[in-house]
C-alpha cells in the first residue's frame, strides 16, 4: 500500500470574487503518476500553483509527508515545477539553467558539476550543456526544463501542461520519455493536462476536475469505463448516451427499455425503481453495427464512414434522429462489414459493456464549451 505524500484538505481559492477551488480534498500517494484533468477554467492550474506555493489558499491546508506547507514560500518547498512554456533562463547556458537550483542550495562546485552532468545524460542532452535555450528545439527545451526540476531531487514534481506546446509526434515521444523518467527516478509526478488521451495513457490515477471540484478520482480504466457522472463520461472519450426507462428491477439485474428494445442489464450501484429514467452509456467501440435483417438492435442508417486504419468509424442516425458513433475494428474477412452511406443498418451492443448513470438534476454543460483537444 502506497503512503500519502501530499495531502490537500478543504482547499478553497477565490480570484476577485470568483470561486476557483471550493473545499477540495485530495491525497497524492508517494511515487504515483497522478494527472489533474479538466477543461480550461476547472481549477487544475490553480491547484498546481497552490501546491508550488505561487498562490496561497484562502482556506484549507497543504501537507507534505506530515509537514505543513500551507504558508511556506515556493523556494522553501521540497518540490519543483516544470512550466508550460518551460521558463528556461534565456541568458544562461543549459548547464547553468540546470545548475541554478543547486547553486541556490550552495552545493560544492564539484557536486554541482557531477549532478548536472548526470541529469543531462539522463535526458540525453550531455552534448548540449553549453548551448543557450534559444539554440535548442522545443523538445530539447522541454527536456532541459525537466532536468532543471529533477536535479534538485524533489519529493514531488509538478508538471503544468508540459507537452501542450509540442507537435503531435514529439508529444508522443515525450509522453513515453516522461513515463520512463518517472519510473527511473521514483519521484511522484503531478501532471496537469486538458488532453484526456494523454491523461489516460500516462497516469496511475486521474483526477477529473470541474468548477474546482473533484468529479472523479480513479485509475484511467475506472474513469473511462465507469465514469462517475455525465460530465466525466462526456469529457473523457466519446460516448453515446441512450435514454433508458427502468422496466423492472430484479436481484442482480434490471430490465431497461432503450428505444423500445427491452434489455436486461446489470443492476447499477445507485438505487433504481421501476419507471425511473436513466442514461445508458456506450463507448463507440462498444457499439455493434448489424445487418438490417437482424432481429436485435435499433434501426438506423449510416450517414458517415471514416476509415481510420485500424478502425472504421461510423455515424449512424437512428429513426428518431439520435446520432450514434460507432468504432469497429477492421475485419477484412467479414463481407457484411463495409456498409455504404445511406444504407439501413441496425445498432446494438454487447451485453454488459454498457454503463448506467442516473439522470442528473443540474443543467448539463454542452460539449461545445470544452476546448478542443488538440
Amino acid at each position, binding site marked *: 500500500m502506497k503512503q500519502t505524500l501530499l495531502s490537500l484538505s478543504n482547499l478553497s481559492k477565490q480570484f476577485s470574487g470568483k470561486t476557483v477551488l471550493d473545499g477540495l480534498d485530495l491525497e497524492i500517494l508517494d511515487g504515483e503518476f497522478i494527472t489533474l484533468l479538466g477543461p480550461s477554467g476547472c481549477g487544475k492550474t490553480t491547484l498546481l500553483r497552490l501546491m508550488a506555493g505561487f498562490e496561497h489558499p484562502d482556506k484549507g491546508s497543504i501537507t507534505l509527508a506530515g509537514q505543513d506547507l500551507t504558508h511556506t514560500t515556493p523556494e522553501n518547498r521540497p518540490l519543483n515545477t516544470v512550466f*508550460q512554456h518551460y*521558463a*528556461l533562463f534565456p541568458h544562461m547556458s543549459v548547464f547553468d539553467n540546470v545548475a541554478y537550483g543547486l547553486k541556490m542550495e550552495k552545493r560544492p562546485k564539484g557536486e554541482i558539476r557531477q549532478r548536472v552532468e548526470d541529469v543531462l545524460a539522463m535526458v540525453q542532452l550531455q552534448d548540449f550543456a553549453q548551448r543557450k535555450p534559444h539554440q535548442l528545439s522545443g523538445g530539447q527545451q522541454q527536456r532541459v526544463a525537466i532536468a532543471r526540476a529533477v536535479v*534538485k531531487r524533489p519529493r514531488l514534481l509538478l508538471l503544468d501542461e508540459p507537452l501542450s506546446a509540442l507537435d503531435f509526434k514529439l508529444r508522443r515521444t515525450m509522453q513515453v520519455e516522461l513515463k520512463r523518467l518517472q519510473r527511473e527516478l521514483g519521484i511522484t509526478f503531478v501532471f496537469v493536462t486538458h488532453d484526456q488521451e494523454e491523461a489516460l495513457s500516462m497516469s496511475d490515477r486521474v483526477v477529473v476536475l470541474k468548477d474546482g471540484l473533484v468529479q472523479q478520482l480513479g485509475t484511467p480504466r475506472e474513469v473511462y469505463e465507469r465514469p462517475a457522472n455525465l460530465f466525466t463520461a462526456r469529457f473523457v472519450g466519446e460516448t453515446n448516451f441512450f435514454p433508458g426507462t427502468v422496466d423492472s428491477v430484479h436481484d442482480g439485474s434490471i430490465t431497461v427499455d432503450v428505444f423500445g428494445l427491452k434489455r436486461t442489464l446489470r443492476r447499477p450501484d445507485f438505487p433504481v425503481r421501476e419507471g425511473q429514467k436513466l442514461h445508458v452509456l456506450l463507448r463507440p467501440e462498444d457499439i455493434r453495427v448489424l445487418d438490417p435483417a437482424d432481429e436485435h438492435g435499433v434501426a438506423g442508417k449510416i450517414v458517415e464512414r471514416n476509415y481510420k486504419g485500424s478502425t472504421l468509424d461510423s455515424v449512424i442516425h437512428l429513426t428518431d434522429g439520435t446520432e450514434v458513433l460507432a468504432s469497429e475494428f477492421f475485419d477484412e474477412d467479414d463481407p457484411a462489414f463495409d456498409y455504404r452511406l445511406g444504407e439501413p443498418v441496425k445498432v446494438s451492443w454487447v451485453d454488459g459493456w454498457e454503463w448506467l448513470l442516473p439522470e442528473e438534476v443540474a443543467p448539463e454543460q454542452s460539449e461545445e464549451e470544452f476546448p478542443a483537444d488538440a
Partner: protein
Amino acid sequence: MHSVMQQPFKTAVLILVWGWLLFLVFVPNLLVVGASVMTRDPATFLSLPLNLDAYRQLFDPLYLEVFLHSLYMAAMTTLVCLLIGYPFAWALSKVGKQRQLVLIFLLIVPFWTNSLVRTYALKLILATNGLLNSALMSIGLIDEPLQLLYTEGAVIIGLVYLLLPFMILPLYSVFEDLRQELLLASHDLGAGRLSTFIHVIVPLTLPGVLAGVMLVLLPAMGLFFVPDILGGSRNLLVGNVIKNQFLDARNWPFGAAASIVLTVTMAFLMFAHRLSKRRLGEEGGS
C-alpha cells in the same frame, strides 16, 4: 510579375534612403572628420596643412578637466536617472494596462513643450527667489534662500528632468518582456527575492539599462543650453565646449575633434548594447 511591378517603387525608396544617409549623414560627418584634422584659421575658419593638433589639444589639462567634469555630471545624471527610472519602469510594468497607458502618456506630455522653455521654467523654480526657496522658507525649513541656481546640482537636476523619460522607456520595454514565469521558476528552484533579482531580473533587464544609459549619458554631455541657463560659468558640458569652439572661439578643428570623440564614444556604447542583446539570444526565450 509581382516583383517587377514593385521594382520602380522599391528602387525609389532605396534611392531616397541611401541618398538621405549619404548626403545628410555620411557627408556631413566626413566634413566634420575633415575639419578636425585641418588647421584653425580666423579668416576662413579652416585651412591646410592637415594635422592632429586639435586632438592633441583635447588632452590639454584645461580641456581635459572640462571633459572629465562634464563626464562626471553626465554620469551623475545617468546614475540618478537609473536609480529613479529602474524602480519606476518596474512598477509601471506591474500596474494594470489602462493605468500604464495613462502613466506613459504623462511621461510623454512634457515632450510637447520645447526643452529650452522647460529649462527656463526650472530656472524659475530654482532661483534665489524662486518657487522652491519660497516654499521651503514658508514652511520654516530654512531661514534664508539656498543657492540652488548656478550650481553643479542645478545642472544635474536639469539634465535628469529632461532625460529621465529616455531612461524609463527602454527599461519599461524590458520589464514588459520579462516573463513572470521566469521569476516563478527562480523561486521554485530555491532562490529568494534577492537572489532572483541578482541572477534573473538584472541580467534580463541589462539591455534596457544599457539602452537607457546610452540615451541619457551621451545627450547629457551635449545639452549645452542646460548649463547655459542653470549652471553658470564653471559647470560646462562637452556640448558647451563644442558650441563655444564653433560660435565664439572660432576654432573649428578643435570643435570638430571634440564632436568626433563624442560620436565614437556613442558608437562604442551602441556596440556594447548589441553584444549584450545577442548574449540573450535573438528572441530572448522560448
